[in-house]
């Protein structure tokens, strides 16, 4: 969770500063944004951590920012900070996939706990996404023939049968096999099957 960052978007500088201070006291790394549009300009798919978002802001509102992030496939978990009258709006946002909402005035440590929970969840997501990314990178290194061979290895086909099916020499199959293991950085067919299982999810 080293590079997980909490992004605070609030128009009130005192609130931003206080939240950052609070998070720092619990050793949570944070970054502040004074408007929704500023954060939107920065946001990307590979952010990791969580987003503390004030619902009521001049200019782009918190809800609007949330919607826009969704369309950009930014999966950063969002915790809404709402005033008294904004609860129904926040509930709707929760249904739309927001992580949580917290009503002002809030219990600060409970807020931090929620932030930590969000970060934990998002870190998992990030890790998984990163490994898939890595796997895809490795797969992209395989040649066409190597992929055909790998498909049959994963299906548990014997080298001799593979050679027959593809019409190549047994020896060639073995070379392909070792190349695949090398490129995919695995030592056995079982390990290969395991890492490719991630992809299947």
């Amino acid at each position: 969770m080293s590079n997980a960052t909490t992004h605070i978007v609030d128009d009130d500088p005192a609130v931003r500063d206080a939240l950052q201070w609070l998070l720092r006291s619990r050793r949570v790394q944070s970054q502040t944004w004074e408007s929704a549009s500023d954060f939107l300009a920065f946001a990307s798919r590979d952010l990791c951590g969580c987003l503390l978002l004030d619902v009521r802001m001049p200019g782009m509102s918190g809800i609007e920012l949330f919607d826009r992030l969704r369309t950009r496939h930014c999966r950063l978990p969002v915790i809404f900070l709402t005033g008294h009258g904004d609860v129904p709006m926040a509930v709707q946002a929760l249904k739309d996939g927001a992580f949580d909402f917290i009503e002002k005035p809030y219990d600060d440590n409970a807020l931090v706990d929620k932030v930590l929970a969000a970060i934990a969840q998002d870190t998992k997501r990030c890790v998984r996404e990163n490994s898939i990314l890595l796997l895809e990178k490795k797969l992209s290194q395989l040649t066409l023939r190597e992929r055909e061979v790998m498909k049959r290895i994963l299906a548990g086909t014997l080298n001799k049968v593979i050679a027959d099916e593809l019409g190549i020499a047994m020896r060639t199959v073995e070379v392909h096999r070792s190349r695949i293991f090398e490129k995919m950085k695995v030592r056995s067919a079982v390990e290969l099957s395991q890492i490719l299982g991630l992809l299947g999810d």
Partner: protein
Amino acid sequence: MGSTTTTPFGERINRWHWLWILPRLAFILFVGGVALLLWMSDRADKEEQRATLISDILWLEQNLRFHLARNEELLGRIDVAHTSDAKAFESYARTMFGFESGLRQMIWLGSDGAVRLAYPAITDPGLAGETGEAIPSQQSYRLARSLGKPVYSRAYPYFMNDWQFEVHVPVSREGRIAGVAVGIYRIRDLLGDSVPWWLAERYRISVNGDSGKVLGTRSKVESAVTGEGYQVAFDPPGWGLALHAEPYHAPRPLASLLLSGTLVILAVIVLWSLWILRRHVVRRQAVEEQLRQEHAFRKAMEDSLDTGMRARNLEGEIIYVNPAFCRMVGWSATELIGRRPPMPYWADDILDETRALSDSVLAGEGPEVGFELKLKRRTGDPIDVLIHEAPLIDARGQHFGWMGSLVDITERKQADERARQQQDRLQSTARLVAMGEMASSIAHELNQPLAAISSYCTGAANLLRSETPADEVLPALDKAVEQARRAGQIIRRIYSLARHGEDRFELIQFEERIDDALALLEADIRQNGIRVTLDLQARPLIEGDPVLLEQALFNLFRNAVESMRDTVPDQRQMGITLACADRYALLTISDRGCGIAANVADKLFDPLFTTKVEGLGMGLAICRSVVENHRGRLSFEANPAGGTVFHILLPMAPQ
């Protein structure tokens, strides 16, 4: 009441036509009767005249015959002495002539028939006699001699237009005819001598020959005759002579003329007056017809009106109501007409006011424009009407009463009331929404520094718990203090926005504010039927903000009014007493409403505390805030008679 004038006028007109025949008939009968009367009297006159004429002419004939007979006798008595010489004969003749018997000549014929004596002497013996013979007539002489009786000759002309006849009288002496005495009558002279003047005055008397030729007349010269003559035979002398009398046109008697003239004039006058009368009646009928149409038109107009009409005389007695009015109040016209105040349709609860208003209208001091009044129907339901009163002026310009038009505005008033309530609710809702919005924005604004303070403090606590050095914690606390100050500023700003400064204070006549606040609630008070007693024991002058004070009073009055919604109507009373004591003005507002429960008494002045469904919970809070702002005190207690009493104590302005 409209059914009395439906008499069929057509029949009446026909009857009048029958009546018209009577005077005409009477007039014709009158004229006919008068004409008949005149004619009959004229005829009677004529018959009488004729009878007179006949008797007159018979008398004349007799008279003439008497003269002639006397002359015969005298001529027959002539003797020798007279016939002996001319002188004696002359004297005898003169004597004869003196009797005015119409004799004009006397001749003595001897027994041989020759003329012996004549007086006057025969001047022209050759003159032809009756038969062209000489005078005297030989034929008559012979006849007289032979008969021995007097004989008359035919009449023969003597000179022009003058006729004469002879009478031969044989004179016998000693048994034999001695001679014949001849007397010659001139007819004109005969008539002149023997017709008396009174007869000649009335008739033209003439002697006619047998062929109808006039042989002599006695007449006035110019007078015309009627042609209705009468004649009798003139015998002797006979020979076809006739005595004829014709009455002159006598002037009709003045009385008769006057009578017939008067009758004619009277008839003309009667005819003329009949004509005038008829013309008058025809005109009158036309006017009546016009009037009737006008009346029917107005009647239809009045009956079709929705507006009630009610006329009263100067004593206030109802003299007319139209059907719309009867429908409006539910009493029939017969029940209403003749009624005097108090009217049955006056609303019971405002009887005195209604009577005062009615009296002022009758005195001519009523409102000039229309005024609204509550009446009641027969069923007891209230009815709101808009009344316009106008003086009733008769044909002579005499003011004899008042006509009032009444428009039923009950529904309109109810609609107005509903609209007003709707408006009130709307305003109250709008106020609520605005207030909610304001509260929300205040809450949001206050939330920010509060949230920041909370975060700083939590953060600081976290750090201290993990035994971080105080230096690192301090900035957070400083920032928290900063945010607390910010929150305080926000609150001060809101307060200064909401609060009026003391610079609006001015000198106020307290009771005027009370009046104004009551005026704002007038509709509610009237609608709820609340009796307000205002007891101004003093008129204190105080120093304060008139708008705020009025608002505070308004809130208190309105609470009092609203608290009595469930009170029985005749107990809905609000008492307002203003008094002065020890340089303080004391206003007491008492109601007979639902009172204040013990469990809410503590919270009564708290802002946002309310017992009303649509209340904001600000009314009494504002009241107390305003009163305290004026260095006064607001308190309340239970009304011993039920309800609540509020007291406001305000310092009076320094003298």
